[in-house]
């Protein structure tokens, strides 16, 4: 006991993180620090591998991912961890039992199994019901690799909590610039926009949706905060320090599933209970989450480069297998059979019991335990897991090869290939780039919206993947099934090969290179550069007539600091949205749906496309006018009549979107309500482009809108004054409406 205690006190005399953490833990001794570890990412990014093994157990530089997370939590002073397992829960629980984690002093690991959770929200609700979380806790997923010290972030969190009980969450972020050409971070995630108050570090805005180059901030943010930094160079580490309120929020909002998409956005947009979220930025420490194959590659290389120290291969932070670090980042286990003529290049990890034949070359790769690599094999940038057999003369580039795979002689794996468990590739076969090969057939039906690691109920064979715990009889059946399918599969991967090549679904095919382990080919980069340049030109040409809705956004984003890109095509998204709204509206007309329901549908569309309410009014108005146009109209006056009936009928719908902002900013700028101008601008645009018929009756319609109280006179006047400085061509409609505007002016003067 004596030795132990003194060891504790002396730990990390050189100012290491360990010492600092331990002190803080002692301070917080009253409530043990707890953590929730989600051992399921609720995503399908790692398919087909995850059909057979949960993602958190996949080896990362020869150590299962979850062990990195647990080792970090342990060293960061967490005392109690609840591991939530869902997909392949048995395997995760088994792994935890077999590893040392259950036997650690001062570190308890509890597995919570569930079979019907479909998202992080369900997991947290389940944990909330179990009532095990007593204080602040750390929320991470089982694929996090980090060496950060939690003490500082925890301290900040607690300090804030003391001052303001609404500060319920602290999010850990780190600096990371996205590549200017591909618009994705080094971890393969999409560009992330965050608005942060630089003084309080409060998070005000969070946007990680792809395909969007614009950001719209609520104006109230600017009025509430003296300054706001808008970052696109930060990365979310998915490490959250939460207060128990987070769990209850999830329990209250039973539709929340995704931590960021639902929970975070919900808190930021809807202002639930006034809860606030803050950020903590780490500078030199490492934290990253493995979300896709690209980040698997990147994080593996970071580990080999020792950024995650002490979680590196030559330190036995878990288990007993250790490698020795040779010059130039070569990690070699003690028992490796390497032929004298074999060349093992820099930044390579070779597991124990692996043999390498003569003249073979390995560089920038990770080779697991017990692999047999033949002669004249060249391996570059590959991740080869355990017990893989690679016969003579194969060439592997930037591939992931899972346990038990057999690659017969002369096979060539092109970049980005993923070979799942126990696949056999026949002689001389060339596996095409970015293809994924599995013993299981690709599920035919796929939930396109919800990305789940866990079974689609439609794909029956999923059950076979969690076989390990089931009785043998079932197992046998599945093997019979397999052998049948093997016959079928044989032809797909060469003679003597076993496995199905998964076809990539149409939508993601284009994106395959983004998230693969292979580096992006230079040709692809050039291509992207060209297209983005072209887009830039298009946007610039369009410049004099900004697409509707842009005006307001630009005015806000102009205030932000780190914002430097306008070139990504926003219109796309908006146009899709517009079409959807139009379709919805048409349906509403045909089926006589109630206004409230239409509002609901449009709202959900808005949320899914992530647009402002201003966009809705524009789009709705657009679709109304379209529908009026589609009705028979022999003369312009009939057209006006048509429009009048449509507008009167659906007035309520439009009004719903228009005055909503009016109330909020009423005091400040009611006269220049952007939404109403939006409608006018939209209409103007229509008259110019898609529905020229309206151009003749512009003023009448405008008058109609005014009569029906849809547009206030201030909006029209504002619109007119805004257009004053514009080109002659642009003024076309202002001139048309001159009289009307004049009348309005006089009327308002009279009122005064």
């Amino acid at each position, binding site marked *: 006991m004596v030795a132990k205690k003194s*060891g504790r006190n002396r730990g990390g005399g050189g100012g290491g993180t360990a010492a600092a953490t331990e002190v803080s833990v002692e301070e917080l001794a009253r409530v043990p620090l707890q953590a929730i570890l989600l051992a399921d990412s609720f995503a399908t990014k790692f398919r087909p591998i995850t059909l057979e093994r949960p993602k958190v157990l996949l080896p990362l530089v020869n150590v299962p991912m979850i062990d990195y997370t647990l080792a970090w939590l342990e060293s960061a002073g967490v005392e109690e961890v609840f591991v939530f397992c869902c997909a392949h829960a048995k395997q995760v629980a088994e792994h935890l039992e077999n590893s040392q984690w259950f036997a650690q002093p001062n570190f308890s690991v509890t597995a919570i199994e569930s079979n019907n959770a479909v998202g992080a929200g369900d997991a947290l609700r389940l944990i909330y019901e179990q009532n095990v979380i007593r204080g602040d806790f750390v929320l991470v997923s089982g694929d996090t690799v980090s060496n950060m010290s939690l003490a500082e972030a925890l301290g900040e969190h607690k300090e804030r909590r003391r001052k303001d009980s609404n500060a319920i969450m602290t999010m850990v972020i780190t600096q990371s610039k996205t590549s200017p050409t591909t618009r994705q971070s080094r971890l393969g995630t999409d560009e992330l926009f965050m608005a942060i108050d630089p003084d309080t570090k409060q998070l005000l805005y969070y946007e990680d949706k792809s395909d969007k180059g614009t950001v719209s901030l609520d104006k109230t943010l600017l009025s509430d905060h003296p300054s706001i930094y808008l970052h696109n160079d930060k990365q979310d580490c998915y490490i959250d320090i939460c207060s128990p309120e987070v769990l209850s929020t999830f329990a209250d909002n039973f539709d929340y599933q995704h931590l960021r998409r639902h929970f975070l956005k919900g808190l930021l947009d809807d202002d639930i209970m006034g809860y606030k979220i803050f950020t903590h930025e780490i500078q030199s420490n490492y934290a990253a989450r493995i979300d896709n194959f690209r980040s698997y590659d990147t994080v593996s*290389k970071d580990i080999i480069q020792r950024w995650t120290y002490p979680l590196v291969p030559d330190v036995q932070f878990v288990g007993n297998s250790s490698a020795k670090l040779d010059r130039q980042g070569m990690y070699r286990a003690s028992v490796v059979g390497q032929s004298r003529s074999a060349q093992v290049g*820099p930044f390579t990890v070779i597991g124990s019991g692996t043999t390498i034949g003569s003249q073979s070359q390995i*560089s920038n790769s990770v080779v697991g335990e017990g692999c047999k690599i033949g002669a004249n094999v060249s391996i570059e940038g590959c991740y080869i897991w355990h017990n893989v057999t690679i016969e003579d003369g194969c060439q592997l580039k930037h591939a992931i090869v899972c346990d038990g795979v057999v690659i017969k002689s002369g096979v060539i794996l092109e970049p980005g290939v993923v070979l799942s468990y126990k696949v056999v590739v026949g002689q001389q076969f060339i596996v095409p780039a970015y293809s994924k090969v599995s013993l299981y057939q690709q599920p035919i039906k796929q939930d396109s919206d919800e990305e789940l690691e866990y079974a689609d109920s439609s794909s029956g064979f999923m059950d076979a993947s969690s076989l390990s715990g089931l009785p043998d009889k079932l197992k046998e059946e599945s093997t019979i099934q397999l052998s049948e399918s093997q016959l079928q599969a044989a032809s797909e991967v060469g003679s003597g090969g076993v496995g199905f090549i998964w076809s990539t679904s149409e939508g993601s095919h284009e994106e395959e290179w983004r998230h693969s382990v292979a580096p992006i080919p230079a040709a692809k980069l050039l291509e992207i550069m060209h297209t983005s340049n072209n887009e830039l030109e298009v946007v610039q040409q369009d410049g004099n007539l900004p697409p509707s809705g842009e005006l307001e956004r630009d005015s806000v984003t102009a205030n932000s600091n780190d914002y430097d890109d306008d070139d990504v095509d926003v219109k796309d998204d908006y146009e899709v949205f517009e079409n959807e709204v139009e379709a919805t509206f048409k349906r509403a007309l045909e089926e006589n749906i109630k206004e409230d329901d239409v509002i609901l549908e449009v709202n959900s569309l808005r949320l899914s496309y992530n647009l402002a309410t201003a966009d809705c009014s524009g789009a709705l108005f657009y679709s109304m006018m379209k529908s009026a146009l589609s009705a028979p109209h022999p003369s312009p006056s009939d057209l006006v009549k048509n429009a009048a009936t449509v507008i009167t009928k659906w007035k309520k719908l439009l009004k719903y979107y228009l005055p909503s902002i009016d109330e909020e900013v009423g005091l400040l700028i009611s006269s220049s309500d952007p939404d109403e101008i939006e409608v006018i601008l939209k209409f103007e645009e229509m008259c110019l482009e898609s529905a020229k018929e309206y151009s003749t009756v512009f003023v009448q319609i405008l008058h109609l809108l005014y009569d029906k109280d849809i547009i206030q006179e201030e909006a029209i006047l504002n619109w007119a004054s805004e257009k004053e400085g514009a080109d002659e061509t642009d003024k076309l409609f202002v001139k048309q409406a001159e009289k009307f505007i004049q009348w309005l002016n006089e009327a308002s003067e009279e009122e005064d």
Partner: protein
Amino acid sequence: MPDVHALVNDFLIKLKRRKIEGSKATAKVTAEVLRSFISQQRLPNTNQAGALIDAVKAVGEQLIAANPVELAVGNVVRRVLHIIREEDLSLTAAAIGGLSLSAGSDDEDDVGHDEHPALSAAAVAAAARSTLRPPSLQTLLEDVPHTAAVPHTSSSGGDSEGKSKSADKNSSTKRLKHNVIEAVNELIQDIVTCHEQIAEQAVEHIHQNEVILTLGSSRTVVEFLCAAKEKKRSFRVFVAEGAPRYQGHTLAKELVTRGLQTTVITDSAVFAMISRVNMVIVGAHAVMANGGVIAPVGLNMVALAAQRHAVPFVVLAGIHKLCPLYPHNPEVLLNELRSPSELLDFGEFSDCLDFGSGSGSPILHVVNPAFDYVPPNLVSLFITDTGGHNPSYMYRLIADYYSANDLVLQRRSAS
């Protein structure tokens, strides 16, 4: 028993995760863990020493493998093994001595011993020792007190011998363990007090108005300098900051609070300043058998500078830092590469580490070794708790502290 296992496992995990830093702390904890391990170890009636040695070896192998870079662990394990051998030897010597003394009353089968009744216990002990290893210089020099010590224990052993054999077996079990634990306690005490003993010699080395250069921070060096200061020596200290961990800064702070005139310089300024320096005093990570030093990174440069300007290069090292291995031995892991984040902020440089394009291999590499190797010819003097020694004398000192049988401890574990 389970308590000890938990203790050992806990220590193992700490070593593996690099949670214990500094050779002194590690050495102390290692000795303490081994002490409790020995005290709980059940010994068979025959060949107790052998059993104990095997058990300690088994644990020691694990401990060494847990953090092969921290040589202090191996040093302490070998010291403890050596202690067991010594104690066993002195006990057998005592037993033989006791037998030969009581030979007249005891008419049993130990005729072989009776043939040399004139043999004194000390001579037996010395003979036995000489079969194990060459007699240490210390034994040769301090022959008289040694012989005096051995009969002392033997006389007590002889007393119990005459009474009953079974009781003696029991007591000798206990005695071996007891003696070993006593000796390990002394070892722990030595490790704890080595600073003071080294610091006591400070006045002999630091003279009035001298300029001392040191790099990084070492507890031993702080104590050494402060001891000289307390003895009313006035001198100045140059502190090279010791990138990338900049422990020199904390050292400077500490020296200033003790009232020493301190100048902080960058590591790269060492060559420029060395001509004004009278002596270089540094700490070490480990001292190898050939007199070479494994020391914090940057010290080789300082040593070269010192040699160039003929400035004495003095290394302070507690006995737990003496490593009986040679640096060319493949089993010795000389260096540890630490995290690159000590040099660069990961966040700032993350855009240089994008593997998503190009060949997929990183273009930016960071190497952050923890240690340097200073060859013995650059070292002028070692100051240990037993006094000052020349580098070429190190192997002799090591022969005093370690048994030759234990040197290859680790190789056996590997094969």
